[in-house]
């Protein structure tokens, strides 16, 4: 065994390490300095607040090292990530423990070298420089083999992704392929070097590390250091504000292009559209491809599924919103004409029902709601029986929050004047905006699924049970956005039999009609709808039930069975 304490083969590694650390430090300063002042304060404070500090530690370990969220989605991929990340981490940790507790190899020319190196250098390549005890040797070998097993899965995934349960993967350019190759070979080289002690392999090992670390900032592997920062920022409660600065930068570089959102996205029904998924959006924006990222931002249905399943909870939809807002549309909205609408309430009532634009296009929902409220003996009034003002959300969806102000104000005035204590809505799109953007203190806001559920549970509405088999479709803005999953299902179980869809609740598939998308063509939407209907028909239900007028209209185009709104179904059973 070689007996020097220093050997030039460590130089490439040291160089790479120095580079990557400097780069990360500069990046860190840049992100933090770009944060708005309040956010920066929030960030510093969150680091010392016990609650967020604990969440930080939990997620740093849980997400960065153990990849808990990936385990939940796909255990094979979970193992792959954990094996590489945790294995590598353990090798570094055990190596250091070993180094500080054990003596260097026998016969080292310690004295001659000490003066030269001890101040700024310590032996990193443990096996080469320090003597192992059996326990350490076992641990090091164990974790090394763990990493290599993870890499084997990665190789299999690359060759044939379906084996590990992934249908679509991202396609990478030369730089990403090269660094991946470097990553894959680092540990086999190390294993060979340790076992044979052939100098060439120690050199290869070190050079591999140099390549990996020098390329890291320019490839998707930048997610390894960025992820930690992103977790801290997220726990500090910082929100997306600017399109490509500060917090968003941290999000962009945290996305490892894992591609899990590609399979999840409703647009992935064909290869062409799968290029519109968040994984590609993040990559394009990272590479400053403004045109493409704006195009994708306008195409996305904003169904939120990618955000829900993303192992890092990257807020890609929020980033897309800010990207949309950067497109120079000069619509110069002028809604001053809304002022002519009288806000004098005709009468006052406890419950105010707002159907919304989309429900105006599906009048059967309005009729059903009327029947239900009358049957239940509710003191109610219609807010928009004769014409409606838009709730403002479609405008906001185009990235124009300020332009929606006139509508928000007018509607708020109308609602407040009515004296109602409860606002019932039929459209989940409205529901979201009323919940999040309106200030309606003292007024309870309910979607009609919740409202009907309450009427049934409190005994105000008597329903009879039939023997129709229903399947329930979770509208994006009701399910993923507000987790209203149980109320509609409980209602349906009271009036018939509920069958399961293939993908339900948080992974339900958007109907394809979403107003979130500005550019999808009718044909493309139809393809998405057909796929979503197939998923719902998984257990051969007699009827598809949904709770959104837009889903209803969209599904009706493609469904082999009757599509109904939950209000309609209930109104048939009272």
């Amino acid at each position, binding site marked *: 065994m070689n007996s020097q304490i220093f050997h030039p083969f460590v130089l490439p590694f040291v160089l790479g390490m120095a580079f990557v650390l400097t780069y990360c430090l500069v990046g860190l300063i840049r992100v933090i300095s770009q944060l708005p002042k309040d956010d920066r304060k929030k960030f510093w404070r969150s680091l010392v607040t016990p609650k967020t500090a604990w969440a930080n530690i939990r997620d740093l370990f849980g997400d960065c090292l153990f990849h808990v969220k990936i385990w939940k989605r796909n255990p094979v991929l979970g193992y792959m990530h954990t094996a590489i990340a945790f294995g590598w981490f353990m090798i570094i940790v055990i190596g250091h423990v070993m180094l500080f507790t054990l003596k260097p190899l026998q016969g080292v020319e310690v004295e001659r070298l000490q003066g030269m190196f001890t101040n700024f250098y310590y032996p990193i390549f443990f096996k080469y420089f320090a003597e192992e005890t059996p326990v350490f040797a076992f641990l090091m070998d164990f974790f090394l083999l763990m990493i290599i097993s993870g890499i084997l899965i990665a190789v299999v995934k690359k060759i044939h992704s379906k084996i590990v349960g992934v249908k679509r993967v991202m396609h990478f350019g030369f730089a990403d392929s090269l660094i991946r190759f470097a990553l894959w070979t680092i540990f086999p080289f190390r294993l060979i070097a340790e076992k044979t002690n052939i100098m060439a392999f120690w050199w290869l090992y070190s050079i591999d590390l140099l390549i990996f670390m020098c390329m890291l900032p320019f490839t998707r592997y930048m997610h390894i250091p960025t992820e930690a920062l992103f977790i801290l920022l997220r726990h500090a409660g910082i929100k997306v504000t600017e399109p490509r600065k500060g917090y968003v930068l941290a999000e962009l570089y945290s996305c490892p292009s894992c591609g899990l959102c590609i399979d999840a996205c409703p647009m992935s029904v064909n290869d062409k559209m799968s290029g519109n998924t968040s994984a590609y959006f993040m990559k394009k924006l990272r590479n400053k491809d403004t045109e493409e990222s704006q195009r994708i931002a306008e195409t996305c249905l904003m169904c939120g599924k990618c955000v829900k399943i993303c192992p890092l909870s990257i807020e890609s939809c929020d980033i897309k919103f800010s990207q949309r807002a950067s497109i120079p549309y*000069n*619509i110069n909205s002028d809604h001053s004409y809304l002022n002519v609408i009288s806000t004098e309430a005709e009468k006052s009532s406890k419950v105010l029902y707002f159907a919304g634009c989309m429900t105006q296009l599906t009048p059967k929902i309005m009729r059903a709601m009327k029947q239900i409220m009358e049957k239940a003996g509710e003191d109610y009034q219609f807010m928009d029986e004769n014409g409606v003002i838009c709730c403002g959300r479609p405008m906001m969806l185009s990235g124009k929050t300020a332009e929606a102000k006139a509508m928000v104000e007018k509607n708020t005035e109308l609602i407040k004047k009515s004296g109602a204590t409860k606002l019932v809505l039929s459209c989940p799109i409205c529901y979201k905006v009323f919940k999040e953007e309106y200030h309606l203190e003292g007024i309870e806001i309910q979607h009609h699924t919740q409202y009907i559920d309450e009427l049934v549970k409190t005994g105000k509405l008597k329903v009879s049970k039939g023997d129709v088999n229903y399947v329930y479709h979770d509208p994006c803005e009701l399910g993923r956005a507000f987790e209203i999953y149980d109320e509609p299902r409980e209602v349906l179980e009271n009036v018939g039999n509920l069958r399961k869809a293939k993908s339900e609740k948080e992974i339900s598939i958007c109907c394809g009609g979403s107003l979130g998308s*500005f*550019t999808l063509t009718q044909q493309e939407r139809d393809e998405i709808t057909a796929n979503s209907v197939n998923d719902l028909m998984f257990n051969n239900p007699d009827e598809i039930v949904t709770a959104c007028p837009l889903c209803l209209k969209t599904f009706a185009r493609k469904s082999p069975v009757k599509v109904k709104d939950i209000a309609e179904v209930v109104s048939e059973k009272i």
Partner: protein
Amino acid sequence: MDFGFCLSPSSHVKMDSVDLTTFNRLKEINPDVNTCIACGSCTATCTAGNFTEMSFRRMLLMLQRGKEDEAKKMIQRCMLCGKCTLVCPRGINIRKILLDITR
């Protein structure tokens, strides 16, 4: 022709001299404007049309006649609610076209 006897200004448009750049550019990005059959469904359902003269069908006509300013003025009324897009029998992506005109 304006012989000077009219009470209101003439609505006569000289098709040879109108500037159609906006309309042509629009057709290029959104070829579906060509498929409009002027059925008026979009106008009938329009949320803004309930309170104003907003009409997408008429706006396309204005653009075809080079009356770009009038068309842009009309768009200011739009709430982007999307009802028009949903009812269009030709599946024309009206919301996107409205936005593109203003770009």
